[in-house]
Structures are given as C-alpha cells and as structure tokens.
C-alpha cells in the first residue's frame, strides 16, 4: 500500500491531519503501522495561547472549531517533539503558520535540517498582517509569495494546504505550484458559524470556526478534484474522511494520498480502520497496488 507523493515515499496512503493528532505523542490506542505519515499541529515562530472557550461546537455531521492555533512555538517544538519524531518509522511534516511571508520563511529556515522534520505543510489560511488581514490563501499572489518564501529556505518537501474559501481553487493551486510547491493538501476547513438560541449569540467565542467532518466531504472531494485537475504536482485529499470508502473517493477523484482528521476525535483508531479498509477493498477488487485504482481525472 505504499504511495509516492512527489519524491516522498509513504508506506501507506493515510496520513494524520494537522490539528487532529497533536504532535504525534498524544493519540493513544492507534496502531501506528497504519500511519503513512503525520502532519503536526500548526506551529508559529512564537508560543500562542489560542482563543477563549467555547472553541468547538458540534453541527450536523460536523464540527466547528476555533482553537486559534494554540501552540508552544517553534523552539519548544524543536526541543520537545522533533527528537522523538527522528526515531519514528513514518515521516512527520510540520504545519507552519505566520503573519507575513517572511515569518513563514523564517520558520522553514529554523526547522530545515532539524532531525525528525521530514517536510512542511504550509497553512495559508492565516490572515496576512501586511495586507490588512486578508487571508494568504484567498489571494494567488500572497499564496505564491508564502510558498516561495518557504521554498527559498529549505530543500525539504513543501506541501501547501489550500483553503476552500475561494471562488476558483485551480487559480490558487496553479499559483503555488508555480511558486515551487511539491504537493497540495486539499482542503482545509470551511468557515462556518452556529448560533446559540439560548444566548442569542454565536456558539463559538471567536464567532466563526472551521467546519470539518463528514458534512464537508462532497465539497472537499470536488475541490480536491478541481485542484488535481489544475496542476501536475500531487494532491493529498482531506475533508470528512472516516472510512476507507471515503478515502477512495478522493483517490479516484485524483488524489495521491489522504489525510484523516476529525474522525480521529470520535474514533482514535480511525486511521488504522481507513488504512485496513482500503487494503481489504483492494484485495476484494484484485488491485495489487494503488496504481491499479482507476482514476477519474480529466485534465483542465
């Protein structure tokens, strides 16, 4: 079940999504043999407290979250987690965040060459302080600038996690491909809001949050497919995957691999179940490897 995401060889097609697997040391009970890789919780240069509670709200077939990228900052990550990753038998990508393109570049430079860090996943769903808070991911030039800033500072693989909150994901996908991305991760959460009818105000203290879970899966399959059609680099599918069949939808639609996220919250064994489920479907269909899976990917 090994797959290639560009030059990165993974022992399996299922990765743990950023923000749903901590730094890889927290989720118990998971059989790690099933992990193709993991993406760390998003990190900034400096420590961040995160947002005030309530931070999560369940919605039909999904959940909203506004955690605010709480984290210990890059130095603590290098000190406390990277040494452990260095001994693991699957690659760990670090999800990097910043308020300016320069900050992303600095993070990449700081992490480049640190044992245990296999590559980067750039979260471009952050507000760009230099551009008055406009999200990097909504503007092809800003998205490309961030990608380039990271690309210039590292030889490690650079993945870019795309936001679905755009009118044409293909435009952003092509812009970051041209700026040097090695792969795309599609997609991040949708921005949503839910109202507490007892308090007459939003259920999240941050007002809005990122919607994840099965509720977004068909939207995510479509956007991952649109991104895959637009570029030549691999796309990793993300969005509401809880079972093997969900993962295969993304793969048939053009994805090289997938990430499982919110499903892990309800089922700590979700990644192993998705991985093993794919293997047993392949066996029953007579596919010997992922290359045998028929794809639906007409090129733009």
């Amino acid at each position, binding site marked *: 079940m090994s797959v290639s995401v560009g030059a990165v060889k993974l022992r399996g097609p299922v990765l743990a999504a950023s*923000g*749903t*697997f*901590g730094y890889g040391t*927290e*989720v*118990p*009970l998971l059989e790690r043999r099933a992990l193709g890789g993991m993406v760390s*919780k998003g990190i900034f240069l400096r420590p961040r*407290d*995160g*947002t*005030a*509670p*309530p*931070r*999560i*709200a*369940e919605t039909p*077939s*999904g*959940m909203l*979250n506004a*955690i605010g990228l*709480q984290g210990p900052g890059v130095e603590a990550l290098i000190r406390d987690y990277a040494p452990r990753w260095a001994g693991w038998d699957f690659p760990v990508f670090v999800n990097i965040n910043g308020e300016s393109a320069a900050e992303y570049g600095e993070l990449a430079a700081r992490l480049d060459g640190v044992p245990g860090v296999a590559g980067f996943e750039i979260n471009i769903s952050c507000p760009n302080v230099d551009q008055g808070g406009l999200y990097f991911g909504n503007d092809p030039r800003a998205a490309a600038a961030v990608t380039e800033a990271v690309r210039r500072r590292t030889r490690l693989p650079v993945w870019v996690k795309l936001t679905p909150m755009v009118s044409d994901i293909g435009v952003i996908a092509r812009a970051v491909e041209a700026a040097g991305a090695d792969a795309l991760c599609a997609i991040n959460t949708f921005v949503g809001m839910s109202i*507490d009818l*007892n*308090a007459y105000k939003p*259920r999240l*203290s941050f007002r809005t949050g990122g919607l994840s*879970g*099965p509720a977004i899966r068909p939207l995510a399959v479509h956007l991952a497919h649109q991104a895959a059609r637009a570029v030549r680099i691999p796309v990793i599918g993300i969005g509401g995957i809880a079972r093997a069949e969900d993962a295969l939808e993304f793969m048939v639609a053009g994805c090289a691999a997938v990430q499982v996220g*919110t499903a*892990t*919250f*309800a*089922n*700590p*064994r979700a990644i192993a179940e998705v991985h093993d489920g794919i293997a047993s479907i392949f066996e029953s269909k007579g596919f010997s490897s992922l290359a045998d899976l028929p794809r639906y990917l007409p090129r733009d």
Partner: protein
Amino acid sequence: MFLLDGALGGQRRVARDMFVISIEAPEIAASVRAGQFVNLGWSPGPLLRRPFSVYRVDGDRIEIVLKAVGEGTSQLLAMSAGDRLSCLGPLGHGFDLSAGPKSIVLISGGLGVAPMPLAAGEARSRGMHLTWVHGARSSDELCTEADGHEVIWATDDGSKGFTGNAVAAAPDADLVLACGPNRMLAAVANRWPDAQVAVETYMGCGTGVCLGCAVPLTGGGYDRACKEGPVYRAAGVDWPSLPSHLSYAVRA
C-alpha cells in the same frame, strides 16, 4: 486508557429528569479513579463522543449519571438494555487524596454529584473523616442516592435539608473536593483556594489532541480539561472566562 464496546445495562431514575445508566466496561471499572471520566460513542449517534464522569462502579460495570440536555443525551436515554456503547476511558486526572488529609468535605451541586460516590468511597477507605454536602434547586431535582454515606442535603428552595446552596452548607476541612455548575465552583474557589474541583467544559476528543476543552488559567493561557483536568486546584481556574450552561452539559 481503554477503548471497548460494552452492553448498556439498566436505567434508573434518581431525580427529576436525572438518570443513572450502567455500561459493561470491565477494564475501566477496574482502573477508574474518582473524578475521571469516560467518553461515550454509539452508532448511529452524534459525530463526537459525549463525556461523563464515572458515578459508580458495580463489578464489571460502570455507572454514569445524566440528564437529557441535548440530542446526544436524549439518544442515550432512549437506548435499550443490551445496546452497545463504545467506551473510551478512564480519561483525565481525578481527585488526588494522596496528601492524606484527616478530614475531607465533598461538595456537589446538581449533576455534579457524578464523581462523588467514588470520591467518598476512596476517602472512607483511607480512613478520612468524611462530610458530603449535596445540593440542588429543589428536592425533586436532588439525587438522594448516598451510597451508604451520610449526606448533608441542601436545596435553594428549602424543600429538603439546608436552605441555600451546598457551598454555604459545607463546613471547613483539610481538603475540599467539589463538582457542579461553574458558578458554584467559583464560589468554592473564593472560600477554599486549594480545593480540588472537577470542571465542566465543551469537549471533543477527550484524549488531548483537539484542544477544544480549553480551561482558562489564572496564570494566563489554557490547558485541557481532558488531559491536565478535569480536576483543578480551584484558585488556578479563571472562572469568569470559563463558559457554563453547555448545550450538552453533563454536570451543570
């Protein structure tokens, strides 16, 4: 920590709209400490699990106490004996009695009764002088299962026991443990900064990864009710910043 499927047992009513259900969970029953919780899932059910303090242990079974406060708890109460539940636990850090206080006071309000039978049992087995004060708005909302312990009852309307809240009815002791609505715990913190209190929060995973159960700390920042909590030193929590009245509250 264990993840296991167990059969739902019987259900009993312990106060108005308040029920105890039991779940077959041998490994959890054998290892749970007072103040720890389980995160329950079922199919078909809501996306996220629902957290509950373990109320009692009965052989291979654990008991939880709940009210139908939302869709999840309503579904749980509508299930039948023999139905399977997925049970993740025991989770979090419970009460810590290892300092060996001579006297201990347990203060619970409403569904905050949940961790107290186990806490009372541990205090008794360690030979501590135990006082348990349990309060509710009125006698019909008061869970009066005492598990063989002597309990001081308190009701806001005076319909049973002391008139007023459980905090006001409680004596001083070497160690105070409390669980109940966050505003009650804030009152506990005022009177006994070193009390150990079990908080209610929204919760996602229960295992420390989603950071959804953030508890604001007086020293700044947040930590996780599911991992560092749910039991805190009372004065360590920034009470005005901790939301209450949860849509799927389990203890308020």
